């Protein structure tokens, strides 16, 4: 390969393996190790660990402790070992001592080189490099912006150099190289390493020493719209500048007499994830992991077949919720208190694929799943909007003279505000509220009236499009007849204060925004008489007495906000009121259930009192865990509600409604699983990896985080950007892979998932586990190595509990799967 080809290849490897985390404004969950997804799960984990030195499993000690405590069942362990034909390893699993120290490949060349030099290059280069990138990319923190922001990173630094008396560089060689138009990356790399044999290893080592910044740069390179104010930057430019800074640092430290990797005759490595085998230690860990997972999975599967059959009631009210695991418990509470309520689950953008433009803003925000490229736009028209100004964030407070005045006056006001924030937390300008996304009284441009934006987005939806949206959603969840009079479309969003990762708390299906616009849009379409008339042709008969009501569930505050209530027919007013009363009670119960995990919360006698305490968390500056978000997620149930109703799944399950009877060919299932695998699987694996290696794959504790340029967080001021989830989000999470249970015949499921190669990869390589449930025979099939095999449930008990809430209120730990006594019967 030529030098340029080697560099191109290395860049390709980097693009693929660097963390792909978007800037803070759009937090989208994804599989942290997506680059290894073409390998089977355990092999991918082994490769990632050997190459990068990530901890990809919990420690052996963790598994052994779980085993000792009975949280890994002996019978399951035996079965796992038997299935894998590794019975002989049992003793090794339980007591053999292994050296768990890691010796990653990536980083090895440069660390040996730096050791031989006796000079820690990175501590010299990183601070100024990070400062340059972060100033260039800055979205609104710095008061003096990087000049020439329209130029590319390299060009703008050159322009800055030319226009100022000083220089970025001190050493003559670096300065000359920078100004010389003939300087290319191979030239710089040759200077640093001595030979092109080292290029690949050197580039990987160099970039993975600060994977956070490199990843962010590549994200912006590949998707410039990821930033509100676009910037032209590329990984190539970053490497170019970094190499120059390295040459300068070396020249300065050694006065030009330093040796390259070639001079020391070091060994380079070749990066190839596919040729990495599984060591015995990792084999042992993979077996433990399977046993750990199946101990839990088996209880869930057992719960499904052992629980008492429940017929879906004749519904007096229905609710369509987001698939989100946080909606799992609120649905359970409502159904418990309102036995003739039936609930459905579907991704929370409710099939509305569009951009949304708030009133008074020039920015559009995507409110559908991240991979979708919408062609529509919804405009908000609000009568009046409260401006939020916070002097504490004002650039002027940092000025000399205004700052002088401010400190003498406003400074004392700060003390008072601080005291109030501590003793009497209340809604404030700092807090993020789910209701800020859209003004509740705003009108939305939902109907297409022939208008388009300059760049070709259609404003609003045509009637045909609406019919298509409504019918495909209703078909997918299996709600095509027996409509209740009131159908609630429940979107969700979250509120929190002082939270840099706030976008990760909103609806994942809406690209990290609350789903209020989507719920309103869907309800509008489903209520539209013309849409209903055309739906009739498709055999979906929505009675004229039925009305759809859009709702926003705040998952942190446990509040329902209703929209467009004036459109509810008068005859339904009493029913609406009755339902709302049930919802209030259910939300209280839900808040109480959630608060069992918040150890700092003292229990109250009254549920509503406890609920108020939970609400306070959303506005408290000092609360790093306003809610626990997706922590503990581990299941995804795709099927009718009847197969999970009354089963206590401890807020661990994504619930997607699907009726296999209506979908013998699996066409609708295909649509569901195409979304479930990347969305739920992405969430689950991000939690998994942030949990097993919170230092390298997670963001560490959020308490010292410092906001960099509004696009990322770092520790202190000189640190690399932190990717993944902070420890506060994952500490109660159990590292299980997602188990998807589909209520459909195995042959249909198998055929369906093979249609889309991307979806097939998730299941075939077992990055999410898949079980098919044959409801007619009450039997399970598990997908192993691309084939379904019958699964016999080991666990045979399922306790039935009456008053679960008072039982679990004081246990922060995980609670087993149990059946709740049905109040319907």
């Amino acid at each position, binding site marked *: 390969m030529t030098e340029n080809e080697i560099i191109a290849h290395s860049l390709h490897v980097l693009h693929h393996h660097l963390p792909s985390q978007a800037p803070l404004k759009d937090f989208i969950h994804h599989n942290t190790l997506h680059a290894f997804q073409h390998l089977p799960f355990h092999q991918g984990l082994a490769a990632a660990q050997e190459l990068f030195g990530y901890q990809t499993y919990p420690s052996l000690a963790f598994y052994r402790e779980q085993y000792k405590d009975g949280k890994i069942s002996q019978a399951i362990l035996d079965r796992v070992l038997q299935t894998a034909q590794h019975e002989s390893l049992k003793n090794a699993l339980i007591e053999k001592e292994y050296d768990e120290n890691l010796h990653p490949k990536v980083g090895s060349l440069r660390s040996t080189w730096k050791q031989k030099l006796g000079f820690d290059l990175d501590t010299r280069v990183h601070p100024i490099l990070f400062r340059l990138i972060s100033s260039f990319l800055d979205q609104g923190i710095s008061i003096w912006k990087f000049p020439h922001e329209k130029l590319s990173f390299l060009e703008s630094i050159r322009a800055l150099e030319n226009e*100022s008396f000083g220089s970025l560089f001190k050493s003559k060689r670096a300065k000359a190289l920078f100004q010389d138009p003939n300087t290319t990356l191979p030239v710089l790399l040759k200077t640093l390493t001595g030979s092109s044999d080292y290029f690949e290893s050197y580039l990987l080592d160099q970039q993975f020493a600060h994977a956070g910044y490199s990843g962010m740069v590549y994200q912006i390179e590949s998707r410039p719209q990821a930033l509100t104010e676009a910037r032209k930057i590329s990984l190539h430019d970053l490497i170019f500048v970094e190499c120059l800074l390295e040459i300068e640092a070396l020249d300065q430290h050694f006065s030009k007499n330093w040796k390259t990797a070639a001079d020391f005759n070091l060994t380079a490595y070749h990066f190839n994830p596919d040729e990495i085998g599984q060591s015995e230690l990792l084999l042992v860990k993979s077996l433990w992991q399977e046993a750990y997972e199946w101990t839990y999975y088996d209880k869930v599967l057992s719960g499904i077949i052992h629980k008492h059959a429940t017929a879906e009631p004749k519904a007096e009210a229905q609710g369509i919720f987001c698939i989100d695991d946080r909606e799992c418990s609120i649905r359970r509470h409502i159904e418990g208190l309102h036995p003739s309520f039936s609930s459905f689950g579907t991704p929370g953008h409710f099939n509305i694929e569009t951009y949304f433009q708030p009133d008074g803003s020039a920015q559009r925000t995507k409110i559908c799943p991240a991979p979708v490229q919408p062609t529509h736009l919804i405009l908000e028209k609000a009568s009046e909007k409260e401006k939020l100004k916070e002097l504490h964030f004002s650039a002027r407070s940092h000025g000399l003279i205004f700052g002088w005045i401010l400190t003498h006056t406003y400074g004392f006001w700060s003390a008072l505000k601080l005291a109030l924030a501590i003793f009497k937390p209340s809604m404030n300008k700092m807090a993020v509220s789910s209701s800020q996304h859209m003004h509740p009284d705003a009108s939305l441009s939902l109907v297409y009236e022939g208008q388009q934006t300059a760049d070709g987005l259609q404003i609003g939806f045509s009637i045909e499009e609406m019919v298509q949206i409504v019918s495909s959603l209703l078909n997918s969840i299996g709600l095509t007849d027996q409509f209740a009079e009131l159908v609630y479309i429940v979107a969700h969003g979250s509120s929190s204060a002082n939270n840099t990762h706030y976008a990760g708390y909103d609806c994942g299906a809406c690209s990290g925004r609350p789903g209020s616009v989507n719920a309103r849009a869907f309800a509008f379409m489903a209520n539209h008489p013309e849409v209903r008339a055309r739906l009739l042709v498709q055999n979906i008969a929505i009675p004229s007495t039925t009305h759809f009501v859009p709702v926003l569930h705040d998952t942190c505050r446990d509040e329902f906000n209703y929209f467009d209530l004036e459109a509810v027919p008068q005859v339904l007013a009493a029913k609406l009121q009755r339902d709302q009363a049930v919802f209030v009670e259910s939300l209280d119960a839900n808040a109480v259930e959630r608060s069992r995990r918040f150890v700092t919360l003292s229990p109250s006698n009254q549920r509503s009192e406890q609920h108020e305490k939970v609400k306070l968390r959303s506005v408290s500056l000092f609360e790093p865990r306003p809610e626990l978000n997706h922590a503990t997620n581990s299941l995804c149930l795709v099927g009718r509600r009847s197969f999970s109703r009354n089963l206590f799944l401890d807020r661990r399950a994504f619930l997607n409604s699907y009726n296999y009877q209506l979908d013998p060919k699996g066409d609708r299932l295909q649509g569901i699983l195409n979304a479930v695998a990347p969305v739920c699987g992405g969430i689950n694996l991000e939690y998994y990896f942030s949990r097993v290696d919170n*230092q390298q794959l997670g963001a560490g*504790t959020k308490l010292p985080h410092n906001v960099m340029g509004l696009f990322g967080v770092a520790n202190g001021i000189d640190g690399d950007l932190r990717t993944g989830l902070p420890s506060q989000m994952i500490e109660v999470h159990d590292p299980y892979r997602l188990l998807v249970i589909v209520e459909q015949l195995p042959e249909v499921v198998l055929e369906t998932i093979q249609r889309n190669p991307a979806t097939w990869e998730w299941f075939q390589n077992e990055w999410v586990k898949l079980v098919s449930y044959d409801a007619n025979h009450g039997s399970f099939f598990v997908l192993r190595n691309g084939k379904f095999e019958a699964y016999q449930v080991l666990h045979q008990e399922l306790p039935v509990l009456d008053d679960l809430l008072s039982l679990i209120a004081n246990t922060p730990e995980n609670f087993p799967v149990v059946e709740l006594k049905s109040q319907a019967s």
Partner: protein
Amino acid sequence: MTTIQFIHLYIGLPLLGFVLSLFFKKSQEQALSVVSYLTAAIQLLLVLVFGLTWFFHGAEATQYKELSVYKTSSYEFFLDFLVDKLTLVFALLGASLTFLITIYSRYYLHREEGYKRFFNSILFFNLGYTLIIFSGNMETLFIGWEILGVSSFLLIAFYRERMLPVKNALKVFSVYRIGDIGVILAMWLLHHLWHSNITFMEMNTTVKLNTHLANASVIGLVTAFMFYISAAAKSAQLPFSSWLPRAMEGPTPSSAIFYGSMSVHIGAFLLLRTMHFWENQLIFKVFLITTGLLTALITSAISRVQSSIKSQIAYASIAQIGLIFVEIALGLDNLALVHILGNAFLRTYQLLISPSVVSHKIREQLYENKQSLVVKETQWLRFQRSIYLLSLKEWNLDNLLYRLIWNPLKRIGRGAKVLNFKYVFWVMAFVLIAGMAIRTNEQMLSETMRHQLPFFFSFWGFLIAVKAFTERDSVRKSLTLIMFNHVSISIAMSFNEHFDNTHHFWYLSGVIISWAIGYYILTRMRKTEWVSLDNFYGHIYEYPKTGFVFLLACLGLAGFPITPSFIGEDLIFSHIHLSQIGLAFFTAFSLIINGLATMRIYARVFLGPHIKTYHQTAKRSS
């Protein structure tokens, strides 16, 4: 309530709280936080009640001599307290913010590894702060000063399993040590100006001051500059400014109160406290105004280019403190006090809510169409760009310390490589014997010899200290060299008159015991672990208790006020003549480098990313 009772209670509280907090278990989050915030709450109540009564009873400054620790005919080391307006304003600031922040942190730090350490350090910090603001003389102030330095080190290195916090903690500690030189030398000069250890009250008695200063105006000026060095180091003024943003490594609330408010304004406190000493020195005042303005201008430019929220606030705060220094120089002490309070509250709050900047600004952009400011390009473009580039590089302030101090030291250390350890050891033995021999036969020496010898011994000590500091390999050698340094200083002093053997005892007892403990720990650890100075080893992960004991040993070896050696240090300086500037300089410098070398040893052996990677370990760049 009498003043005395008030002082006792007020200083006793954090001490009691700190000691109590050491005995709780890690898991007792409630108890730990309650002790911390109750301490601050009672302090706040006390300062409010006492402050008001004090104000209505004439608001007179009251001094109280607490305890004479060591006394000879010519020398007395005593603790002394002073309560006046300045004390009460700073007490109000400290108590109210500590109270609020400890309550804040109760929830914020919940489940954090190191919950206990955090509250221990906060109480320890509170103790140091209280001692400083109540101190009635330099000696008492210096005790608080040292406690503040160590607790800052511990708070910055709170996330001790990562590299950057540990490196930055060492960096800040070294700037603080430079500040300590100022205090030590000022103490020495003051001692000679008054021929005894004096109190701030005495110092401020103008009549006395004028006569002294009139006779020794150069000394007066030098003393004032020493105050400036200490004040500038603690308040991050030029040329030390770059440490402040780098101190923001701990949990946000601790950065907010310590580096947003309490710690950074201590420099201003020192200037206000010594105001009467220098208020008639025009040169010093002009200097103070110039550096204050310069700091304000430069750091506010740096603040404007920061793309990280915490460093932006840090530099903006430094700029205001620059103005505070100007106000103090102009004699506007009341204005300065109001400014200090306002700046402290504002920056604390800004830092606490700094994570909110993301949602707030993005909301502005996304929902309110807020465009970012575009700076107009003027005809001074070249000038504008140069300032931008310079500010982006923080005016090279961060490199300055390296270039001016550490690099020369390293060069000396490298030069001293010929002095291998064995050689040093034998020379030391020779020095010890020769020193004793010469001392017993002092009469044989000429006057000049007697005057010069201490200098040579102290220079020798200085060289050893540098060698200890630059040692890259053996921990035990480095530790032993530090001990040798103290011994050399002690020998050097023995040639000055009035230095008797009890002084040696005072000085060396703590040092040698601490060294022995440290040496023992290292020897034991070496049996199972790899221990060296070439890297950060992070052994605290497996040896938290050993690490704590070793930290105590290091503090003892560095002359921290937990052993009698601390008084010994002060004693030593009282014996150095004003004419022996070289001796004073090298002795002071030795002590500083000693302190750095010991903390470096502790950091390299016990802190940083753990050398073993069988568990989750942080990347070096994080």
